[in-house]
Protein backbone atom coordinates (compact mmCIF):
# COMPACT_ATOMS: atom_id res chain seq x y z
CA UNK A 1 0.00 0.00 0.00
CA UNK A 2 1.35 3.38 -0.94
CA UNK A 3 1.70 6.09 1.68
CA UNK A 4 -1.16 8.49 1.01
CA UNK A 5 0.23 10.91 3.60
CA UNK A 6 3.68 10.85 2.02
CA UNK A 7 2.25 11.39 -1.46
CA UNK A 8 0.11 14.28 -0.24
CA UNK A 9 3.07 15.90 1.52
CA UNK A 10 5.28 15.52 -1.56
CA UNK A 11 2.54 16.95 -3.76
CA UNK A 12 2.36 20.17 -1.73
CA UNK A 13 5.80 20.02 -0.14
CA UNK A 14 6.49 23.75 -0.37
CA UNK A 15 3.41 24.72 1.61
CA UNK A 16 3.96 21.82 4.01
CA UNK A 17 7.58 22.75 4.69
CA UNK A 18 6.71 26.41 5.19
CA UNK A 19 3.94 25.47 7.60
CA UNK A 20 6.26 23.10 9.46
CA UNK A 21 8.97 25.77 9.56
CA UNK A 22 6.54 28.25 11.10
CA UNK A 23 5.56 25.68 13.68
CA UNK A 24 9.26 24.90 14.15
CA UNK A 25 10.03 28.49 15.15
CA UNK A 26 7.34 28.23 17.81
CA UNK A 27 8.85 24.95 19.00
CA UNK A 28 12.25 26.67 18.96
CA UNK A 29 10.92 29.37 21.30
CA UNK A 30 9.53 26.65 23.59
CA UNK A 31 12.86 24.81 23.64
CA UNK A 32 14.65 28.10 24.33
CA UNK A 33 12.36 28.79 27.29
CA UNK A 34 13.27 25.40 28.70
CA UNK A 35 16.93 26.23 27.97
CA UNK A 36 16.64 29.53 29.83
CA UNK A 37 15.29 27.70 32.89
CA UNK A 38 18.06 25.12 32.65
CA UNK A 39 20.57 27.93 32.29
CA UNK A 40 19.32 29.59 35.48
CA UNK A 41 19.58 26.34 37.42
CA UNK A 42 22.99 25.68 35.92
CA UNK A 43 24.17 29.17 36.86
CA UNK A 44 23.08 28.48 40.42
CA UNK A 45 24.86 25.12 40.45
CA UNK A 46 27.97 26.59 38.86
CA UNK A 47 28.07 29.26 41.56
CA UNK A 48 28.05 26.51 44.18
CA UNK A 49 30.44 24.20 42.33
CA UNK A 50 32.94 26.92 41.54
CA UNK A 51 33.02 28.22 45.10
CA UNK A 52 34.78 24.98 46.06
CA UNK A 53 33.05 24.91 49.46
CA UNK A 54 31.46 22.13 51.46
CA UNK A 55 29.77 24.49 53.94
CA UNK A 56 28.52 28.06 53.73
CA UNK A 57 28.66 29.80 57.10
CA UNK A 58 26.48 32.89 57.39
CA UNK A 59 24.80 35.16 59.93
CA UNK A 60 22.50 33.34 62.34
CA UNK A 61 18.86 33.27 61.27
CA UNK A 62 19.53 34.15 57.64
CA UNK A 63 19.70 32.18 54.41
CA UNK A 64 22.56 34.31 53.08
CA UNK A 65 24.84 35.15 51.50
CA UNK A 66 22.87 35.33 48.20
CA UNK A 67 19.23 34.92 49.15
CA UNK A 68 19.38 37.26 52.18
CA UNK A 69 21.87 39.82 53.52
CA UNK A 70 24.35 38.26 55.94
CA UNK A 71 26.97 40.06 57.98
CA UNK A 72 29.54 38.34 60.18
CA UNK A 73 32.85 39.54 61.64
CA UNK A 74 35.86 38.85 59.45
CA UNK A 75 37.83 37.25 62.27
CA UNK A 76 35.29 34.50 62.85
CA UNK A 77 36.91 32.34 60.20
CA UNK A 78 39.66 31.54 62.67
CA UNK A 79 37.09 30.09 65.04
CA UNK A 80 35.58 28.15 62.18
CA UNK A 81 39.01 26.67 61.41
CA UNK A 82 39.14 25.30 64.93
CA UNK A 83 35.99 23.21 64.43
CA UNK A 84 36.64 19.51 64.06
CA UNK A 85 36.68 18.40 60.41
CA UNK A 86 37.31 21.86 58.90
CA UNK A 87 40.33 21.96 56.57
CA UNK A 88 40.15 25.44 55.03
CA UNK A 89 37.98 28.52 55.67
CA UNK A 90 37.83 31.74 53.67
CA UNK A 91 36.06 35.04 54.13
CA UNK A 92 34.01 36.28 51.19
CA UNK A 93 32.08 39.44 50.39
CA UNK A 94 29.44 39.50 47.64
CA UNK A 95 28.19 42.74 46.13
CA UNK A 96 25.79 42.72 43.20
CA UNK A 97 26.34 46.09 41.63
CA UNK A 98 27.05 48.13 38.55
CA UNK A 99 30.73 48.49 37.66
CA UNK A 100 32.02 50.76 34.93
CA UNK A 101 34.46 50.10 32.14
CA UNK A 102 34.99 53.39 30.39
CA UNK A 103 31.53 54.56 29.44
CA UNK A 104 30.08 51.06 29.64
CA UNK A 105 28.23 49.80 32.68
CA UNK A 106 28.49 46.13 33.58
CA UNK A 107 26.08 44.38 35.90
CA UNK A 108 28.29 42.11 37.97
CA UNK A 109 28.64 40.26 41.23
CA UNK A 110 31.76 41.77 42.79
CA UNK A 111 33.33 39.17 45.06
CA UNK A 112 35.91 39.97 47.66
CA UNK A 113 38.41 37.22 48.44
CA UNK A 114 41.78 37.19 50.14
CA UNK A 115 44.46 37.64 47.48
CA UNK A 116 47.52 35.45 47.18
CA UNK A 117 45.71 32.31 48.27
CA UNK A 118 45.70 28.99 46.42
CA UNK A 119 43.25 28.75 43.54
CA UNK A 120 41.76 25.64 45.10
CA UNK A 121 40.86 27.46 48.33
CA UNK A 122 37.11 27.96 48.80
CA UNK A 123 35.80 31.13 47.21
CA UNK A 124 38.87 31.72 45.06
CA UNK A 125 38.44 32.34 41.31
CA UNK A 126 38.94 29.05 39.49
CA UNK A 127 39.40 28.13 35.85
CA UNK A 128 41.65 30.98 34.81
CA UNK A 129 41.65 31.15 31.05
CA UNK A 130 43.97 34.15 30.77
CA UNK A 131 46.28 36.22 32.97
CA UNK A 132 47.15 35.35 36.56
CA UNK A 133 45.74 35.27 40.07
CA UNK A 134 45.61 38.38 42.27
CA UNK A 135 48.85 38.96 44.13
CA UNK A 136 48.53 42.59 45.28
CA UNK A 137 46.44 43.53 48.29
CA UNK A 138 44.56 46.24 46.41
CA UNK A 139 43.24 47.33 43.02
CA UNK A 140 43.57 44.11 41.09
CA UNK A 141 40.66 42.22 39.67
CA UNK A 142 39.85 38.94 37.98
CA UNK A 143 36.78 39.02 35.74
CA UNK A 144 34.65 36.40 34.06
CA UNK A 145 34.93 36.44 30.27
CA UNK A 146 31.17 37.00 29.96
CA UNK A 147 31.73 40.51 31.38
CA UNK A 148 33.41 41.43 28.11
CA UNK A 149 36.51 42.62 29.95
CA UNK A 150 40.02 41.71 28.91
CA UNK A 151 43.33 41.43 30.76
CA UNK A 152 44.73 44.92 31.28
CA UNK A 153 41.34 46.65 31.25
CA UNK A 154 40.53 49.10 34.02
CA UNK A 155 37.18 48.87 35.79
CA UNK A 156 35.75 51.32 38.25
CA UNK A 157 34.09 49.89 41.38
CA UNK A 158 32.68 52.60 43.57
CA UNK A 159 35.47 55.19 43.79
CA UNK A 160 38.42 52.96 42.96
CA UNK A 161 39.81 51.66 39.72
CA UNK A 162 40.99 48.07 39.35
CA UNK A 163 43.19 46.53 36.70
CA UNK A 164 42.01 43.21 35.34
CA UNK A 165 44.89 40.75 35.77
CA UNK A 166 43.08 37.51 34.95
CA UNK A 167 40.01 36.05 33.27
CA UNK A 168 37.85 33.13 34.37
CA UNK A 169 35.18 31.09 32.61
CA UNK A 170 31.66 30.22 33.88
CA UNK A 171 32.09 32.13 37.13
CA UNK A 172 28.67 33.75 37.33
CA UNK A 173 26.07 34.63 39.94
CA UNK A 174 22.82 32.70 40.29
CA UNK A 175 21.18 35.28 38.05
CA UNK A 176 23.87 34.89 35.41
CA UNK A 177 25.80 38.10 36.10
CA UNK A 178 29.57 37.75 35.63
CA UNK A 179 31.66 37.63 38.79
CA UNK A 180 34.49 40.13 39.27
CA UNK A 181 36.91 39.18 42.02
CA UNK A 182 38.72 41.90 43.95
CA UNK A 183 40.82 41.81 47.14
CA UNK A 184 38.78 41.23 50.31
CA UNK A 185 39.76 44.53 51.96
CA UNK A 186 38.71 46.52 48.92
CA UNK A 187 35.39 44.67 48.80
CA UNK A 188 34.78 45.31 52.50
CA UNK A 189 35.49 48.98 51.96
CA UNK A 190 33.24 49.10 48.89
CA UNK A 191 30.50 47.44 50.91
CA UNK A 192 30.48 50.07 53.66
CA UNK A 193 31.65 53.10 51.73
CA UNK A 194 29.58 56.25 52.15
CA UNK A 195 29.82 59.31 49.97
CA UNK A 196 31.94 62.27 51.23
CA UNK A 197 28.96 64.52 52.02
CA UNK A 198 27.40 61.82 54.19
CA UNK A 199 30.69 61.32 56.05
CA UNK A 200 31.10 65.07 56.69
CA UNK A 201 27.49 65.38 57.90
CA UNK A 202 27.90 62.36 60.18
CA UNK A 203 31.08 63.79 61.68
CA UNK A 204 29.32 67.09 62.35
CA UNK A 205 26.50 65.29 64.10
CA UNK A 206 28.92 63.31 66.28
CA UNK A 207 30.92 66.40 67.08
CA UNK A 208 27.79 67.99 68.54
CA UNK A 209 26.82 64.82 70.41
CA UNK A 210 28.27 64.78 73.96
CA UNK A 211 28.10 60.99 74.02
CA UNK A 212 30.76 60.79 71.27
CA UNK A 213 32.56 64.05 72.07
CA UNK A 214 32.55 64.47 75.86
CA UNK A 215 34.67 67.23 77.31
CA UNK A 216 37.99 65.95 78.54
CA UNK A 217 38.13 62.83 76.34
CA UNK A 218 39.84 64.17 73.20
CA UNK A 219 40.59 60.85 71.43
CA UNK A 220 37.09 59.33 71.55
CA UNK A 221 35.57 61.18 68.58
CA UNK A 222 38.54 60.36 66.34
CA UNK A 223 38.33 56.71 67.35
CA UNK A 224 34.62 56.53 66.55
CA UNK A 225 35.11 58.22 63.17
CA UNK A 226 38.00 55.93 62.30
CA UNK A 227 35.93 52.86 63.09
CA UNK A 228 33.09 54.14 60.95
CA UNK A 229 35.35 54.48 57.92
CA UNK A 230 36.53 50.90 58.06
CA UNK A 231 34.59 47.67 57.80
CA UNK A 232 35.47 44.39 59.38
CA UNK A 233 32.39 42.52 58.21
CA UNK A 234 32.13 39.83 55.56
CA UNK A 235 29.05 38.10 54.14
CA UNK A 236 30.07 34.50 54.61
CA UNK A 237 32.82 32.10 55.45
CA UNK A 238 33.28 29.31 52.93
CA UNK A 239 34.47 26.07 54.45
CA UNK A 240 36.29 23.12 52.92
CA UNK A 241 36.11 19.98 55.04
CA UNK A 242 38.79 17.38 55.53
CA UNK A 243 38.31 14.21 53.47
CA UNK A 244 35.77 11.97 55.18
CA UNK A 245 34.49 14.70 57.51
CA UNK A 246 30.74 14.92 57.94
CA UNK A 247 29.19 18.21 56.75
CA UNK A 248 26.28 17.66 59.12
CA UNK A 249 28.51 17.26 62.17
CA UNK A 250 30.79 20.15 61.26
CA UNK A 251 27.80 22.34 60.41
CA UNK A 252 25.98 21.60 63.63
CA UNK A 253 29.17 22.26 65.62
CA UNK A 254 29.57 25.64 63.94
CA UNK A 255 25.92 26.48 64.60
CA UNK A 256 26.14 25.34 68.21
CA UNK A 257 29.44 26.82 69.27
CA UNK A 258 29.81 29.88 67.06
CA UNK A 259 26.11 30.82 66.94
CA UNK A 260 26.16 31.05 63.16
CA UNK A 261 24.18 29.37 60.38
CA UNK A 262 25.92 26.67 58.32
CA UNK A 263 24.49 25.26 55.12
CA UNK A 264 25.66 22.18 53.24
CA UNK A 265 25.73 21.79 49.45
CA UNK A 266 22.21 20.36 49.16
CA UNK A 267 20.71 23.01 51.46
CA UNK A 268 22.40 25.84 49.58
CA UNK A 269 21.28 24.39 46.26
CA UNK A 270 17.76 24.21 47.62
CA UNK A 271 17.95 27.86 48.74
CA UNK A 272 19.19 28.99 45.34
CA UNK A 273 16.89 26.90 43.15
CA UNK A 274 13.75 26.79 45.28
CA UNK A 275 13.89 30.28 46.74
CA UNK A 276 16.12 32.60 44.75
CA UNK A 277 15.08 31.57 41.24
CA UNK A 278 11.74 29.94 42.13
CA UNK A 279 9.59 32.85 40.93
CA UNK A 280 11.50 33.13 37.66
CA UNK A 281 11.23 29.36 37.21
CA UNK A 282 7.46 29.46 37.76
CA UNK A 283 7.24 32.34 35.29
CA UNK A 284 9.08 30.29 32.69
CA UNK A 285 6.99 27.21 33.49
CA UNK A 286 3.86 29.27 32.82
CA UNK A 287 5.31 30.38 29.50
CA UNK A 288 6.13 26.78 28.67
CA UNK A 289 2.57 25.68 29.41
CA UNK A 290 1.12 28.55 27.36
CA UNK A 291 3.48 27.89 24.46
CA UNK A 292 2.61 24.18 24.55
CA UNK A 293 -1.10 24.98 24.46
CA UNK A 294 -0.60 27.51 21.66
CA UNK A 295 1.50 24.99 19.72
CA UNK A 296 -1.19 22.34 20.17
CA UNK A 297 -3.88 24.76 19.02
CA UNK A 298 -1.84 25.76 15.97
CA UNK A 299 -1.08 22.14 15.04
CA UNK A 300 -4.76 21.26 15.47
CA UNK A 301 -5.79 24.22 13.31
CA UNK A 302 -3.25 23.39 10.60
CA UNK A 303 -4.15 19.70 10.48
CA UNK A 304 -7.87 20.46 10.60
CA UNK A 305 -7.55 22.99 7.75
CA UNK A 306 -5.42 20.60 5.70
CA UNK A 307 -8.02 17.87 6.20
CA UNK A 308 -10.98 20.09 5.43
CA UNK A 309 -9.36 21.12 2.15
CA UNK A 310 -9.43 17.43 1.16
CA UNK A 311 -13.03 16.66 2.12
CA UNK A 312 -14.03 15.82 -1.46
CA UNK A 313 -11.04 13.51 -1.89
CA UNK A 314 -11.81 11.85 1.44
CA UNK A 315 -15.44 11.33 0.38
CA UNK A 316 -14.23 9.78 -2.89
CA UNK A 317 -11.74 7.58 -1.03
CA UNK A 318 -14.48 6.38 1.32
CA UNK A 319 -16.85 5.76 -1.57
CA UNK A 320 -14.16 3.74 -3.33
CA UNK A 321 -13.90 1.54 -0.25
CA UNK A 322 -11.01 3.02 1.69
CA UNK A 323 -11.12 1.93 5.30
CA UNK A 324 -11.42 4.51 8.06
CA UNK A 325 -8.11 3.47 9.53
CA UNK A 326 -6.35 4.23 6.23
CA UNK A 327 -7.81 7.75 6.24
CA UNK A 328 -7.12 8.24 9.95
CA UNK A 329 -3.59 6.97 9.41
CA UNK A 330 -3.07 9.44 6.55
CA UNK A 331 -4.08 12.38 8.74
CA UNK A 332 -2.09 11.12 11.72
CA UNK A 333 1.03 10.58 9.62
CA UNK A 334 0.75 14.11 8.24
CA UNK A 335 0.38 15.52 11.75
CA UNK A 336 3.41 13.54 12.92
CA UNK A 337 5.34 14.61 9.83
CA UNK A 338 4.49 18.21 10.57
CA UNK A 339 5.62 17.76 14.16
CA UNK A 340 8.83 15.99 13.14
CA UNK A 341 9.89 18.65 10.65
CA UNK A 342 8.75 21.37 13.04
CA UNK A 343 10.81 19.87 15.85
CA UNK A 344 13.94 19.59 13.68
CA UNK A 345 13.54 23.22 12.58
CA UNK A 346 12.85 24.28 16.17
CA UNK A 347 15.87 22.41 17.56
CA UNK A 348 18.17 23.91 14.93
CA UNK A 349 16.74 27.39 15.49
CA UNK A 350 17.05 27.13 19.28
CA UNK A 351 20.66 25.93 18.95
CA UNK A 352 21.55 28.72 16.55
CA UNK A 353 20.04 31.58 18.49
CA UNK A 354 20.96 30.36 22.00
CA UNK A 355 24.42 32.05 22.03
CA UNK A 356 22.81 35.42 21.30
CA UNK A 357 20.75 35.43 24.49
CA UNK A 358 22.18 37.74 27.15
CA UNK A 359 21.89 34.99 29.76
CA UNK A 360 23.10 31.44 29.58
CA UNK A 361 20.74 29.13 27.66
CA UNK A 362 21.42 25.48 28.36
CA UNK A 363 19.88 23.09 25.83
CA UNK A 364 20.21 19.58 27.16
CA UNK A 365 19.52 16.37 25.19
CA UNK A 366 17.03 15.21 27.83
CA UNK A 367 14.89 18.31 27.31
CA UNK A 368 15.12 17.84 23.54
CA UNK A 369 13.97 14.22 23.88
CA UNK A 370 11.12 15.21 26.19
CA UNK A 371 10.23 18.08 23.85
CA UNK A 372 10.17 15.72 20.89
CA UNK A 373 7.84 13.30 22.68
CA UNK A 374 5.64 16.21 23.77
CA UNK A 375 5.47 17.58 20.21
CA UNK A 376 4.56 14.14 18.89
CA UNK A 377 1.91 13.73 21.61
CA UNK A 378 0.51 17.18 20.82
CA UNK A 379 0.38 16.26 17.12
CA UNK A 380 -1.50 13.04 17.89
CA UNK A 381 -4.01 14.85 20.10
CA UNK A 382 -4.31 17.73 17.64
CA UNK A 383 -5.01 15.36 14.75
CA UNK A 384 -7.93 13.73 16.58
CA UNK A 385 -10.23 16.63 15.71
CA UNK A 386 -9.35 16.38 12.04
CA UNK A 387 -9.64 12.58 12.07
CA UNK A 388 -13.06 12.83 13.66
CA UNK A 389 -14.17 15.30 10.98
CA UNK A 390 -12.77 13.09 8.22
CA UNK A 391 -14.46 9.96 9.54
CA UNK A 392 -17.77 11.80 9.66
CA UNK A 393 -17.57 12.61 5.95
CA UNK A 394 -20.39 10.89 4.16
CA UNK A 395 -19.18 8.98 1.08
CA UNK A 396 -22.47 10.01 -0.53
CA UNK A 397 -20.99 13.52 -0.80
CA UNK A 398 -18.97 12.22 -3.73
CA UNK A 399 -22.20 11.48 -5.57
CA UNK A 400 -24.16 14.46 -6.80
CA UNK A 401 -27.73 15.23 -5.80
Amino acid sequence: MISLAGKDILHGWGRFILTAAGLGLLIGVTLSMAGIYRGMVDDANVLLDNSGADLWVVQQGTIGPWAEPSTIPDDLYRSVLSIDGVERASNVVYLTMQVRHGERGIRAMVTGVAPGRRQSDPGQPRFLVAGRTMTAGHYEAIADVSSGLDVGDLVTIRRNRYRVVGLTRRMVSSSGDPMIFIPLRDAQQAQSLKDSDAIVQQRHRREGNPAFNPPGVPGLLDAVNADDASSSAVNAVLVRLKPGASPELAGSAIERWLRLEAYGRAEMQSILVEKLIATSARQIAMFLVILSVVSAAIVAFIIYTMTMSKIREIAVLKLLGTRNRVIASMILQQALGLGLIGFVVGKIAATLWAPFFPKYVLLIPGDAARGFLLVMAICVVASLLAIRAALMVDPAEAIGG
Partner: protein
Amino acid sequence: MERTGIAIEQLTKRYGSGQTAVDALKGVDLSVEPGEVVGLVGPSGSGKSTLLKCLGAVIEPSSGVMKIGGSPIYDNRWLAGDLRALRRDKIGFVFQAPYLIPFLDVIDNVALLPMLAGERNGASRERALAVLEALDVAHRARAMPSQLSGGEQQRVAIARALVNRPPVVLADEPTAPLDSKRALGVIGLLNDMARQYETAVIVVTHDEKIIPTFKRIYHIRDGRTHEEAGEGKALYETADYCSGH
Protein backbone atom coordinates in the same frame (compact mmCIF):
# COMPACT_ATOMS: atom_id res chain seq x y z
CA MET B 1 -26.21 -18.64 -11.41
CA GLU B 2 -28.10 -15.90 -13.21
CA ARG B 3 -26.16 -14.02 -15.82
CA THR B 4 -26.90 -10.61 -14.40
CA GLY B 5 -24.69 -7.62 -13.81
CA ILE B 6 -27.07 -5.95 -11.41
CA ALA B 7 -30.71 -6.55 -10.66
CA ILE B 8 -33.08 -4.95 -8.18
CA GLU B 9 -36.65 -5.85 -7.34
CA GLN B 10 -39.19 -3.69 -5.58
CA LEU B 11 -36.58 -1.48 -4.03
CA THR B 12 -37.97 1.23 -1.77
CA LYS B 13 -36.40 4.02 0.21
CA ARG B 14 -38.23 6.07 2.81
CA TYR B 15 -36.69 9.12 4.46
CA GLY B 16 -37.99 10.05 7.90
CA SER B 17 -40.96 8.47 9.64
CA GLY B 18 -44.57 9.13 10.54
CA GLN B 19 -46.42 11.95 8.85
CA THR B 20 -43.22 13.62 7.65
CA ALA B 21 -41.95 10.46 5.89
CA VAL B 22 -40.99 10.83 2.25
CA ASP B 23 -40.93 7.86 -0.09
CA ALA B 24 -38.09 8.60 -2.49
CA LEU B 25 -38.25 5.15 -4.12
CA LYS B 26 -41.54 3.30 -4.32
CA GLY B 27 -40.71 -0.15 -5.59
CA VAL B 28 -38.09 0.15 -8.29
CA ASP B 29 -37.28 -2.75 -10.62
CA LEU B 30 -34.16 -2.67 -12.75
CA SER B 31 -31.87 -5.20 -14.41
CA VAL B 32 -28.69 -4.72 -16.43
CA GLU B 33 -26.78 -7.51 -18.16
CA PRO B 34 -22.99 -7.78 -18.16
CA GLY B 35 -21.57 -5.82 -21.08
CA GLU B 36 -24.69 -3.67 -21.32
CA VAL B 37 -24.94 0.09 -20.90
CA VAL B 38 -28.34 1.45 -19.89
CA GLY B 39 -29.49 4.97 -19.23
CA LEU B 40 -31.30 6.09 -16.11
CA VAL B 41 -33.07 9.36 -16.79
CA GLY B 42 -35.52 11.48 -14.92
CA PRO B 43 -36.18 15.04 -13.79
CA SER B 44 -34.69 16.57 -10.70
CA GLY B 45 -36.25 15.19 -7.52
CA SER B 46 -37.42 12.03 -9.25
CA GLY B 47 -35.23 9.80 -7.07
CA LYS B 48 -32.24 9.30 -9.41
CA SER B 49 -29.63 10.19 -6.83
CA THR B 50 -31.34 8.15 -4.13
CA LEU B 51 -31.44 5.13 -6.42
CA LEU B 52 -27.78 5.65 -7.33
CA LYS B 53 -26.79 5.84 -3.66
CA CYS B 54 -28.77 2.66 -2.93
CA LEU B 55 -27.15 0.88 -5.87
CA GLY B 56 -23.75 2.13 -4.72
CA ALA B 57 -24.31 0.76 -1.20
CA VAL B 58 -23.88 4.24 0.17
CA ILE B 59 -27.31 4.44 1.80
CA GLU B 60 -29.49 1.58 2.92
CA PRO B 61 -32.76 0.97 1.10
CA SER B 62 -35.90 0.48 3.16
CA SER B 63 -36.92 -2.76 1.47
CA GLY B 64 -36.47 -4.82 -1.67
CA VAL B 65 -33.89 -7.10 -3.17
CA MET B 66 -30.60 -6.24 -4.86
CA LYS B 67 -28.21 -8.62 -6.60
CA ILE B 68 -24.81 -7.97 -8.10
CA GLY B 69 -23.25 -10.56 -10.38
CA GLY B 70 -26.09 -12.92 -9.48
CA SER B 71 -25.33 -12.80 -5.76
CA PRO B 72 -27.87 -11.19 -3.47
CA ILE B 73 -26.33 -8.32 -1.53
CA TYR B 74 -29.52 -6.84 -0.13
CA ASP B 75 -32.71 -8.58 0.88
CA ASN B 76 -34.54 -6.17 3.15
CA ARG B 77 -31.16 -5.80 4.88
CA TRP B 78 -27.57 -5.75 3.80
CA LEU B 79 -26.28 -9.27 3.34
CA ALA B 80 -22.71 -8.14 2.86
CA GLY B 81 -20.91 -7.57 6.15
CA ASP B 82 -18.45 -5.02 4.80
CA LEU B 83 -20.04 -2.42 2.54
CA ARG B 84 -16.68 -0.74 1.92
CA ALA B 85 -15.27 -3.96 0.51
CA LEU B 86 -18.46 -4.42 -1.49
CA ARG B 87 -18.09 -0.97 -3.05
CA ARG B 88 -14.36 -1.51 -3.64
CA ASP B 89 -14.65 -4.94 -5.26
CA LYS B 90 -18.10 -5.08 -6.88
CA ILE B 91 -18.97 -1.52 -7.89
CA GLY B 92 -17.13 1.00 -10.03
CA PHE B 93 -17.95 4.69 -9.84
CA VAL B 94 -17.61 7.38 -12.48
CA PHE B 95 -18.57 10.86 -11.33
CA GLN B 96 -19.71 14.04 -13.02
CA ALA B 97 -16.23 15.43 -12.43
CA PRO B 98 -13.31 12.98 -12.51
CA TYR B 99 -12.52 13.50 -8.80
CA LEU B 100 -9.08 12.01 -9.16
CA ILE B 101 -6.94 12.14 -6.03
CA PRO B 102 -4.80 15.22 -6.77
CA PHE B 103 -1.72 14.07 -4.89
CA LEU B 104 -1.48 10.69 -6.66
CA ASP B 105 -0.19 10.30 -10.19
CA VAL B 106 -2.36 8.66 -12.82
CA ILE B 107 -1.16 5.11 -12.30
CA ASP B 108 -1.50 5.31 -8.51
CA ASN B 109 -4.97 6.84 -8.84
CA VAL B 110 -5.99 3.73 -10.75
CA ALA B 111 -3.88 1.25 -8.78
CA LEU B 112 -5.20 2.53 -5.44
CA LEU B 113 -8.27 0.28 -5.53
CA PRO B 114 -6.41 -3.01 -5.96
CA MET B 115 -3.95 -1.81 -3.33
CA LEU B 116 -6.83 -1.11 -0.94
CA ALA B 117 -8.01 -4.66 -1.63
CA GLY B 118 -4.66 -5.91 -0.39
CA GLU B 119 -2.93 -6.54 -3.69
CA ARG B 120 0.80 -5.86 -3.87
CA ASN B 121 1.86 -2.47 -5.24
CA GLY B 122 3.65 -3.95 -8.26
CA ALA B 123 0.75 -6.18 -9.28
CA SER B 124 -1.71 -3.33 -8.70
CA ARG B 125 0.27 -1.01 -10.95
CA GLU B 126 0.56 -3.67 -13.67
CA ARG B 127 -3.17 -4.12 -13.62
CA ALA B 128 -3.74 -0.36 -13.64
CA LEU B 129 -1.40 0.03 -16.59
CA ALA B 130 -3.33 -2.60 -18.55
CA VAL B 131 -6.60 -0.69 -18.04
CA LEU B 132 -4.93 2.60 -18.89
CA GLU B 133 -3.62 1.03 -22.10
CA ALA B 134 -7.12 -0.17 -22.96
CA LEU B 135 -8.28 3.41 -22.53
CA ASP B 136 -5.33 4.76 -24.53
CA VAL B 137 -4.01 6.90 -21.68
CA ALA B 138 -1.10 4.75 -20.52
CA HIS B 139 1.40 7.28 -21.87
CA ARG B 140 0.25 9.69 -19.12
CA ALA B 141 0.71 7.11 -16.36
CA ARG B 142 3.26 9.20 -14.46
CA ALA B 143 1.47 12.52 -14.91
CA MET B 144 -0.35 14.21 -12.07
CA PRO B 145 -4.09 14.81 -12.53
CA SER B 146 -3.55 18.56 -12.80
CA GLN B 147 -1.37 17.95 -15.86
CA LEU B 148 -4.14 16.12 -17.76
CA SER B 149 -6.79 17.49 -20.06
CA GLY B 150 -10.44 17.11 -19.05
CA GLY B 151 -10.87 14.20 -21.46
CA GLU B 152 -7.80 12.42 -20.15
CA GLN B 153 -8.97 12.88 -16.58
CA GLN B 154 -12.34 11.36 -17.39
CA ARG B 155 -10.65 8.38 -19.07
CA VAL B 156 -8.47 7.87 -15.98
CA ALA B 157 -11.63 8.01 -13.87
CA ILE B 158 -13.16 5.29 -16.06
CA ALA B 159 -9.98 3.25 -15.72
CA ARG B 160 -10.23 3.57 -11.94
CA ALA B 161 -13.84 2.39 -12.05
CA LEU B 162 -12.87 -0.67 -14.08
CA VAL B 163 -9.55 -1.69 -12.56
CA ASN B 164 -11.03 -4.17 -10.08
CA ARG B 165 -13.22 -5.62 -12.87
CA PRO B 166 -16.43 -4.92 -10.97
CA PRO B 167 -19.70 -6.53 -12.18
CA VAL B 168 -21.32 -3.09 -12.21
CA VAL B 169 -20.24 0.48 -12.92
CA LEU B 170 -22.38 3.43 -11.84
CA ALA B 171 -21.80 6.58 -13.85
CA ASP B 172 -23.29 9.75 -12.37
CA GLU B 173 -23.77 12.38 -15.08
CA PRO B 174 -20.38 11.52 -16.63
CA THR B 175 -20.90 13.76 -19.66
CA ALA B 176 -22.43 16.82 -18.00
CA PRO B 177 -19.45 19.17 -18.39
CA LEU B 178 -18.50 17.96 -21.90
CA ASP B 179 -19.40 19.15 -25.38
CA SER B 180 -21.34 16.83 -27.71
CA LYS B 181 -18.36 15.22 -29.33
CA ARG B 182 -16.56 14.48 -26.08
CA ALA B 183 -19.80 13.40 -24.37
CA LEU B 184 -20.48 10.89 -27.10
CA GLY B 185 -16.84 9.79 -26.92
CA VAL B 186 -17.22 8.99 -23.22
CA ILE B 187 -20.36 6.95 -23.90
CA GLY B 188 -18.45 5.14 -26.65
CA LEU B 189 -15.70 4.32 -24.21
CA LEU B 190 -18.16 3.07 -21.61
CA ASN B 191 -19.78 0.82 -24.23
CA ASP B 192 -16.40 -0.53 -25.33
CA MET B 193 -15.23 -1.12 -21.79
CA ALA B 194 -18.55 -2.67 -20.74
CA ARG B 195 -18.15 -5.25 -23.49
CA GLN B 196 -14.44 -5.78 -22.90
CA TYR B 197 -14.76 -6.12 -19.11
CA GLU B 198 -18.20 -7.80 -19.09
CA THR B 199 -19.48 -5.05 -16.84
CA ALA B 200 -23.01 -3.75 -16.44
CA VAL B 201 -23.02 0.05 -16.75
CA ILE B 202 -25.76 2.34 -15.50
CA VAL B 203 -25.45 5.91 -16.73
CA VAL B 204 -27.51 8.44 -14.79
CA THR B 205 -28.08 11.42 -17.05
CA HIS B 206 -30.37 14.03 -18.36
CA ASP B 207 -27.98 14.87 -21.17
CA GLU B 208 -30.19 14.73 -24.26
CA LYS B 209 -27.17 14.38 -26.53
CA ILE B 210 -26.39 10.90 -25.26
CA ILE B 211 -29.88 9.54 -24.57
CA PRO B 212 -30.31 8.27 -28.14
CA THR B 213 -27.22 6.08 -27.74
CA PHE B 214 -28.79 3.77 -25.13
CA LYS B 215 -30.47 0.57 -26.22
CA ARG B 216 -32.46 0.49 -23.01
CA ILE B 217 -33.51 3.38 -20.86
CA TYR B 218 -35.02 3.42 -17.40
CA HIS B 219 -37.16 6.44 -16.75
CA ILE B 220 -37.64 7.32 -13.12
CA ARG B 221 -40.42 9.59 -11.94
CA ASP B 222 -41.88 9.98 -8.47
CA GLY B 223 -39.80 7.13 -7.17
CA ARG B 224 -40.90 4.56 -9.76
CA THR B 225 -39.13 3.32 -12.88
CA HIS B 226 -40.44 2.20 -16.19
CA GLU B 227 -38.31 0.73 -18.90
CA GLU B 228 -38.38 1.55 -22.56
CA ALA B 229 -36.31 0.56 -25.53
CA GLY B 230 -33.84 3.17 -26.67
CA GLU B 231 -32.68 4.00 -30.14
CA GLY B 232 -29.23 2.54 -29.53
CA LYS B 233 -27.67 4.82 -32.12
CA ALA B 234 -23.88 4.61 -32.42
CA LEU B 235 -23.44 8.37 -32.60
CA TYR B 236 -19.96 8.25 -31.12
CA GLU B 237 -16.48 7.62 -32.35
CA THR B 238 -14.43 6.40 -29.43
CA ALA B 239 -11.18 6.87 -31.30
CA ASP B 240 -11.97 10.56 -31.82
CA TYR B 241 -12.52 11.02 -28.13
CA CYS B 242 -9.41 9.13 -27.21
CA SER B 243 -7.24 11.18 -29.48
CA GLY B 244 -8.83 14.51 -28.67
CA HIS B 245 -7.71 16.26 -25.50
